[in-house]
């Protein structure tokens, strides 16, 4: 009974609804965006009323917020953290630096396009986005999860070779030594 298509769909709908209302956020505080997380989480904007909550470790988190530019060195750690997270997991790119490099587009050590290295579910535009924008972006993520379209983790697994190739391009020695998805 549980294996037939309709029951699966119903179970998934309920699961997605529950997931969308208990989003634990791992704020990966790179760059300047981390400063916008504190007002978002504390009493002024109080993100917890919408179900967003800080998580202590990557293994407990559902969403990784990447708040700003990523250097080549940070990308390695971000990849490692992302692979440590348990499914279901989502990535939110925060600020224009994650979208196209922002003001660091011609820097020798910051990447430009985050979605070449990790599957990004939602981008929040701005430099920096205000807490309202952060909440709007996270609400958009909720909506996507509820619709069942937030499938970044599956995308990462399906296209693992492509993502690994891109990661290897900027970190040839480090990624080669690292195990694949086995942290």
């Amino acid at each position, binding site marked *: 009974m549980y294996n037939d298509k309709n029951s699966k769909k119903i179970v998934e709908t309920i699961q997605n609804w529950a997931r969308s209302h208990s989003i634990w956020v791992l704020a990966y505080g790179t760059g300047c965006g981390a400063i916008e997380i504190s007002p978002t989480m504390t009493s002024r904007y109080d993100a917890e009323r919408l179900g967003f909550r800080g998580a202590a470790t990557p293994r407990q988190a559902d969403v990784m917020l990447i708040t700003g530019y990523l250097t*080549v*060195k940070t990308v390695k750690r971000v990849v490692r953290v992302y692979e440590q997270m348990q499914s279901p997991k989502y990535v939110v790119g925060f600020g224009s630096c994650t979208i196209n490099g922002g003001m660091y587009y011609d*820097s020798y050590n910051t990447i*430009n*396009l985050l979605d*070449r290295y990790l599957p990004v579910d939602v981008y929040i535009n701005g430099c920096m986005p205000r807490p309202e924008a952060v909440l709007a972006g996270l609400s958009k993520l909720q909506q996507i999860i509820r619709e069942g379209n937030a499938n970044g983790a599956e995308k990462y697994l399906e296209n693992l070779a492509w993502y690994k190739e891109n990661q290897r391009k*900027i970190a*040839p*020695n*480090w990624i080669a030594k690292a195990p694949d998805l086995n942290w």
Partner: protein
Amino acid sequence: MIAQIKAVFPEAVNKDYDGNRLDLTVNKEAVPSVLLYLKDSMGFRHLSHIAYVDWIEQGEFELVYILWSPLDKVKLYVHTRINRENPVIENIDMIWRQANTYEREIREMLGIEFTGLVAPDEFILEDWDDIPPFRKDFDTLEYVNRTFWHRPGREDAQDVRSTISERSGEEIPDFAKKYSR
């Protein structure tokens, strides 16, 4: 104090930016002995920083050892020039321990070798296989085009600066036109 330094090093110039700054240019061979003398006999106990400049037109690197005398409140900038082709200079981290960190940074970012420097190879950069990135002949944008990707859409960015200046009747100086986009 300034008179005392000028008596020992006649070529020291008081550039007089803020009254207590002296600039001194020495040969690269003389750097360790001069610094040791300044530390032991002149009271320059503190090495604030080692600054570095790439004079690509003259084929030289410049290192500036910034010293501070806490008793006399005098800053001393010891300049030295190194040939760009074979950039080697004596290591001074036995005089000030903190020089080790600065020298590692300079070795990585500018490619200057310090004889006798004992430190791991990598400091800030990891997996770097290009020429040192702070050299002037390192083309950052070319490196970015080769290593990373650009999102389409940047290339049609409008010339904001000239639009604003046209609207307000402001004249842009020639040197600034190069930077406006």
